[in-house]
């Protein structure tokens, strides 16, 4: 099973989640502060981070940004409030998904599994059958190796960003609604939060587009959703 790094300052919440996730078969490393969490991330002993946004010391947003700067470790935000600003800020800081406290252990567990699926072989399979190297203008997508490069330079994409790009580029020129993308990439059932898609598209554009305010690869189709190209 997976190794979960849980960063949560409230002890009972931390204990409860640790207890429940451990029972689901995960190895849970629970810490109380962002600083401790970053140390654990550096040690590289985690597969996924469950991160509370309200932390003493450096807050969850900053922790999120620092983890993202280090690499593509998946992050699930744990927010005590369903406040729009918090959710949007967290997603912009690089979180892959979020759950609102109070959360039942099985819901969090499902999200952990979904985000982990994006990193491994499942993404490779979901990336689309004919595994091979595709060329889209300056963008090269290797569906087998899960490597994306632009102008010959590899682009570091977080798992969710990569999965989103693979999903969109599988059917170039075809519009996918936010709902379709939520179900395909985040495995959210009906009524997932479409802001997840919007935030992830923003981050993806920042990495692969020349000018993210005039996107070429991931284009917005107002009122419908997003599409890859046409170039």
């Amino acid at each position, binding site marked *: 099973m997976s190794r979960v790094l849980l960063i949560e300052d409230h002890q009972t919440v931390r204990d*409860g989640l640790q207890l429940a996730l451990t*029972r689901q078969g995960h190895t849970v490393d629970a810490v109380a502060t962002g600083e401790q969490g970053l140390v654990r991330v550096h040690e590289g002993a985690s597969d996924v981070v469950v991160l509370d946004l309200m932390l003493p010391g450096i807050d969850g947003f900053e922790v999120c940004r620092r983890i993202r700067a280090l690499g593509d470790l998946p992050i699930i935000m744990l927010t005590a409030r369903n406040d*729009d600003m918090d959710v*949007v800020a967290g997603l912009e800081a690089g979180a892959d998904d979020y759950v609102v*406290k109070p*959360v*039942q252990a099985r819901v969090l567990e499902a999200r952990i599994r979904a985000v982990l699926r994006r990193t491994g072989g499942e993404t490779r399979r979901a990336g689309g059958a004919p595994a091979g190297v595709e060329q889209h203008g300056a963008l090269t997508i290797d569906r087998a190796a899960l490597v994306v490069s632009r102008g010959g330079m590899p682009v570091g994409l977080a798992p969710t960003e990569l999965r989103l790009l693979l999903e969109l580029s599988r059917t170039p020129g075809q519009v996918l609604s936010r709902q379709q993308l939520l179900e395909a990439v985040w495995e959210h059932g009906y009524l997932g939060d479409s802001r997840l898609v919007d935030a992830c598209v923003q981050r993806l554009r920042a990495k692969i587009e020349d000018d993210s305010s005039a996107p070429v690869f991931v284009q*917005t189709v107002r009122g419908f959703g997003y599409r890859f190209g046409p170039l």
Partner: protein
Amino acid sequence: MTRWRWAVGRASGLRVRLLLAFTLLGLTTTAVVASGSYFQARRVILQQAQDAAVVSLTDQLITVYPLRRLPPTQDELDSMAGILSDRDSSVVVYYHGMRTRGSQLPEPFTPELREAVRDGKVAWQRVSLKGQPVLLIGTQLMIDQPDGTSRPSGLEVYAVRSLIPEKQSIDRLANLAWVTGGLSLVLAVLLALLAAAGVLRPVRELGRAAHRLGQGDLTTRLVVRGTDELADVARTFNNTAQTLERQVGELRRMESDARRFVADVSHELRTPLAAMTAVTDVLDEEAGGLPGDAGRAARIVSQETQNLVRLVDDLIEVSRFDSGTARLALDDVDVAAAVTATLRVRGWADQVRAELPPGVMARLDPRRLDVIVANLVGNAFRHGAAPVSLRLHAEPNWFTIEVADQGPGLDPEVLPHVFERFYKADTARTRSEGSGLGLAIAWENARLHRHAGQPGSLVAGNAPAGGAVFRLRLPRVAESAGDGGVR
């Protein structure tokens, strides 16, 4: 009609009334003064002319004395008239049946005049002769007798004097009176306007201020000018507005404190609830293995924790509506598909008779639509009776969703309160059936969707055949308030 009423309202307005009063006052004063002085002057002028004519005639009469023999001859009569006539007046002399010849004058002399003259008096009369005003003066020459008395001679002298110069003077006076009257009328109107403006400006300011106050601007104050009654009114207005502002401010503060307290409490409850919720799955799994009461207790704790979470979530949602921070996250959805998904996710797909015409696209917040529909259908199952039906109907700019059940319907006493928070129609209802906020939240969610300044709506009623009907009406394209739209 309204125009007419407006005109009537204006006509009876303060300005018009003031104007009319001043004009009337001006007119009356001018009329009294002008006509008084006119008539007085006219009387004096005529009197003077008359006196002068009488004096002049009697002066002239001296020249015909001493009288020759009586009766006079026609020639003597004519020459006497010639002597007495001058440029102002022509004279006719009678002696019994004789009359001066050659006179152009007709016989204007009235019997009364002749009568008075015959009696030996000096008489006069103003008459109109060929359209010209003239003064007639008549007198009889007297003969002195040796005993000192005098007797009438029978010679009647009548002078006809033109009054045209006097008439012209009087006409000038009349014209002057008219002009003066007109000028003073204009002055009166101007004064009236000035006075009206002086009174009306503060009144209008007061009206505007009262309107602003009515619109909710409690900081409205008037500038107090002078010490008159209007200044008193302005001062009273200011005091009232100040009191109102203070009291409303206090009420608002209390209300927002209460709301913030609810929001804070709800947020504070979340942390312990988060810890409890995290382990409810553990409790559920272990409950079966626990002996008797412990197992039941574990299940109760787990169940009530989830209910408590729902209640706190609803409280936070409500406090978001109250604080105005609720925002729409708009997306384009197929309404039929969205409703189907709502029913499917909750396992109601087979229990609800849904009439969902395809292709009704709408731009709305899908999460809120889900909340509303789930609430209405859940409510129908809880309080009504199966079969529950749901009908979607599209209009050009709006669509409606009707959820009806076959239960007893809503009590007319309950109907006005169904969307109130924590309103419990059925006192026997158990807590576990809902937070008591569901319909209130659904109602707020409907109103949050706006189109062309008009909010969406949710109304409750009863079907003619019985059973409650909830009717949701939402815009096809909701307006985005703040963020949440397509980026």
